[in-house]
């Protein structure tokens, strides 16, 4: 391999097979950084003389009241589709995780799953009813909730159906946005639900709640009271501004680390009950149909998971050289302890650098320098969380669940890179 190098690299700087380098190379400000390659589909531009451009001479317009991305970034968008072309209100749009960096998802790019479209809710008419096994049933509006003490916390949100294609018998030939793009991360601001529950006075026999949305399907889920009193929030804000309509305006239930579907958008009612409601979305849907005839339900917590977002099938390699492998890792049970990367299909592993700070129940960005020598490679990432849980291989996950479990697919993903630099989803 060494004879193919374009730049001399000390053999001690390799940390695993197939060109994975030491994560600390970046930190040392190595001269290698000057030759990093970018991913993309565009051809390299030939050297051209510098010229004075029109925007260097003429003033532009006054800034817009609410800014939007550059018109040259028009391809950085949520992509998705209705689940049926006859029912356009039911479907998903996914975050372009291959086009973002860091850990935060801009509000306009946060993933969304809708069952009856995006409701157009007048906040002045929206009410939240808390009732059931409580001493004092209460009604709140947006204005009254806004006067409560507000907390802001950075958390990921992931759909229970994210990565459902990873269960397919054959590897789906799609990009990382389609495969894993139902995960996002934002700073959620709102009122701790425990304050409102204490004001209502919960009956000690009330071990669960029903949360119901104000959308046309009245999406309804049961949630353990323990979670409600621990860290649940009625979120009013997303990254500092009011929630976007597709993410629950004017208020949503937020349950850190829990399955996206349980974080009821447009929440209009919380009913305290003694046992689960067994709603459609915790029985018929969002339950895992497992081989052997058992269905598991209340798959509340999103398990530890990682995925390489650069490179990805959408991003072609631009010739041999130095690249930065980058991706996202998270765990609904705590935080990311380490991420390892393999370039040889899981035989040897190199530890990736984690962007600091690493937060509980939030997306963590990992990065590792890689010298790609132009030969085929199999890239994988594997997260270990602070509970010691290690992300499983696909074979392990399928052996436990079967191929129809559909939800909570959290196994290792493999990107195969061929000699032309094309990136493809494979099973390995």
């Amino acid at each position, binding site marked *: 391999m060494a004879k193919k190098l374009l730049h001399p690299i000390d053999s001690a700087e390799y940390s695993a097979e197939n060109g994975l380098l030491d994560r600390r190379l970046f930190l040392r400000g190595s001269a290698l950084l000057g030759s990093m390659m970018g991913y993309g589909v565009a051809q390299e531009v030939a050297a051209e003389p510098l010229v004075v451009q029109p925007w260097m001479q003429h003033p532009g317009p006054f800034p817009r009241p609410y800014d939007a991305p550059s018109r040259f970034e028009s391809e950085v968008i949520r992509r998705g589709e209705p689940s*049926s072309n*006859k*029912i356009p209100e039911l479907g998903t749009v996914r975050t372009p995780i291959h086009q973002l960096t860091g850990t935060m998802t801009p509000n306009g790019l946060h993933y969304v799953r809708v*069952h*009856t479209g995006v409701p157009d809710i007048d906040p002045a008419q929206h009410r939240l*009813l*808390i*009732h059931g096994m409580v001493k*004092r*049933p*209460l*009604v*709140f509006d947006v204005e*009254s*909730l806004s*006067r*409560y*003490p507000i907390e802001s916390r950075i958390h990921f949100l992931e759909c229970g159906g994210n990565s459902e294609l990873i269960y397919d018998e054959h590897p789906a030939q799609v990009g990382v946005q389609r495969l894993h793009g139902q995960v996002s991360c934002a700073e959620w601001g709102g009122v701790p639900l425990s*304050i*409102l529950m*204490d*004001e*209502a006075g919960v009956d000690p026999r009330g071990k669960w709640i*029903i949360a*119901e949305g104000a959308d*046309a*399907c*009245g999406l*309804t889920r049961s949630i353990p009271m323990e979670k409600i009193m621990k860290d649940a929030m009625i979120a009013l804000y997303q990254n500092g501004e009011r929630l976007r309509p597709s993410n629950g305006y004017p208020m949503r239930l937020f349950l850190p680390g829990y399955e996206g579907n349980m974080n009821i958008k447009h929440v*209009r*009612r919380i*009913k305290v*009950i003694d*046992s*689960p*409601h*067994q*709603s*459609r979305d915790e*029985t*018929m849907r969002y*339950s*895992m*149909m*497992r*081989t*052997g*005839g*058992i*269905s*598991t*339900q*209340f*798959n*509340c*917590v999103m398990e530890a998971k990682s995925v390489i977002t650069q490179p990805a099938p959408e991003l072609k390699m631009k010739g041999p050289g130095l690249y930065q492998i980058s991706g996202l890792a998270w765990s609904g*049970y705590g935080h990311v302890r380490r991420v390892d990367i393999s370039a040889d299909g899981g035989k040897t592993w190199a530890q990736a650098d984690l962007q600091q700070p690493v937060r509980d129940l939030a997306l963590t960005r990992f990065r590792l320098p890689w010298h790609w020598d132009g030969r085929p490679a199999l890239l994988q990432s594997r997260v270990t969380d602070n509970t010691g849980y290690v992300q499983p291989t696909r074979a392990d996950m399928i052996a436990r*669940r*079967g191929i*129809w479990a559909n939800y909570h697919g959290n196994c290792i993903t493999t990107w195969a890179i061929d000699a032309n630099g094309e990136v493809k989803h494979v099973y390995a």
Partner: protein
Amino acid sequence: MFMRNLSILALSFAFVTAAYALEAPHLGRPATPDDIKAYELDAMPDGRFLPEGHGTAKEGEAIFVEKCQSCHGEKGVKGIALALVGGQGTIGKNEIKPLRTVGSYWPYAPSIFSYIRRAMPYYESKSLSTDEIYALTAYLLALNKLIGEQDEMNAKTLGQVKMPWRDHFRPFKRGD
């Protein structure tokens, strides 16, 4: 000195916590029985909270043809929306694609009632009368041969319908 500072800190923290509890905002207004009646749409899996009312499959058929069939297809077998009938024996086998329907998968009959009540018909939810919902629920159960054509579904009988896949559900545990 350090300990003294620490105890002062602890004391002030205790004071702040106590003062905060006393000053909890209490900005919710009391909910009236009418408020709850207007919003409450759910029934428990054993039938608790089911409203008064009744319906049979025969009554449900006419409502289904008028309001549901355009999406769910004739007798709920095949349409642009999910199938409501069939699929028994297809769940839990690697070699067969599972078909989840009212008959093959839903574990509790009152959940069907609650779902129709808050979410259906898709383009005009929360518009059916209680009797219409009982009748539609009865029709779907009868199409799946889980009750007879003449069986009346009401607040007492619906929770007693035995659903085939009920005993196959269990809560998820980490590592599953």
